[in-house]
């Protein structure tokens, strides 16, 4: 299942709507790092609210997406991690330390606009 990627001003928003296969994740990664430069986006928000489980491949891919997007000159915010998922992730030792996180899409947008307002 393909993940829709919306352009919202200076940001890209990718909303994961169901459990993703490994191939879907790779596809998402490619799509994001291509579009982030094509649309001259300053940041990418990945919304994982609908994910009830996050295996190590998915978390690693998210981390890689964030790193690649940084290399492409933008920032990543992961939003909507469920409490149970968060705890399971840290127990597996996946903390996404280098990636910004926010409670939900609204918070993610607020975080980014605050951040870029300060920069401008």
């Amino acid at each position, binding site marked *: 299942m393909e993940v829709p990627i919306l352009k919202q001003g200076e940001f890209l928003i990718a909303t994961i709507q169901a459990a993703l296969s490994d191939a879907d994740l790779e596809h998402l990664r490619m799509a994001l790092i291509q579009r982030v430069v094509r649309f001259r986006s300053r940041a990418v928000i990945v919304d994982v609210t609908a994910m009830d489980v996050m295996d190590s491949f998915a978390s690693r891919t998210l981390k890689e997406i964030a790193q690649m997007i940084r290399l492409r000159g933008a920032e990543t915010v992961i939003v909507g991690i469920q409490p149970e998922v968060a*705890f399971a992730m840290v127990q597996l030792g996946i903390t996404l330390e280098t990636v910004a996180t926010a*409670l939900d899409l609204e918070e993610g947008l607020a975080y980014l606009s605050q951040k870029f307002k300060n920069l401008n």
Partner: protein
Amino acid sequence: MAKRDRSPRASGLRSPEAAKLTQGEAPSELLRELVAHLRQNRTLLREEWVGRISETRLLTAMTKDEIFAEATSVYDSYVEALETGTFEALQAYARNLSERIIPRGVETHEVVGIVLLLRDVLARSLFATYQTDFKKLNRILDAYEPAANRIANTVAVGFVQERERVIRQQQEAIRELSTPVLQVRERLLILPIIGVIDPQRARQLTEQLLRGIRTNRAKVVVIDITGVAAMDVTVANHLVQTVEASRLLGATVIVTGLSPEIAQTLVTIGVDLGKMNTVGDLQGGIEQAERLLGYKVVPS
């Protein structure tokens, strides 16, 4: 208890003989005779038992009348259990009795003590009755002892189980009471932790906190551990995990009130708290949280 030393000798004597003799009289027959004897001498034996209880200063939390009333019920249930060979009624009574006396501070050793006393009193009376017929006494004891031991066992287990049930119930209550997640300002939560943290409680704390972050849409959480006396590796690591999991939900955690002892322990055991935001006391923690949230306290 005083007659404990008797049983090994007696059983050594008994076994070859008992096998031969039981052919004549079935054990159930003997048991019936035994029960009849105990029924006949009910008043006398009960009095003696109660006397022994107060002599040995058991059940000091109860009055004489209460002891007498309970002793009567226990005696009757005891004889009934001997007679029928079923322990359900006795078990139920033991549970009921435990329920009543545990809140009054009756100890396990007292309950076990009185049942063993009754066992001894009855055994003594059997000795007195059958002292002229040693072989019969042996057979009577063969029938009596296993049943009596099982009764003592049943009562003791019933009491301990009831106690454990009470303890579990209280633990549950304490756990529920002790983990409040409080909102002090819009988007600011406080989690005061008091008392001992075991892994189970730590887990519950984390779950409650993460749920609280979600429902209150919190951005900053102050975890105050002033009331925590000690912390081991497991719990410290759990705390670190809680901080990390909160961050995944987009909330910043500030830990306050680390005692000197805990600070020493954590550094000595080498728990990496580098990622943790710590402030000396709760006041400082709240002030920093307000700064992070953009609040400014202005004296009027």
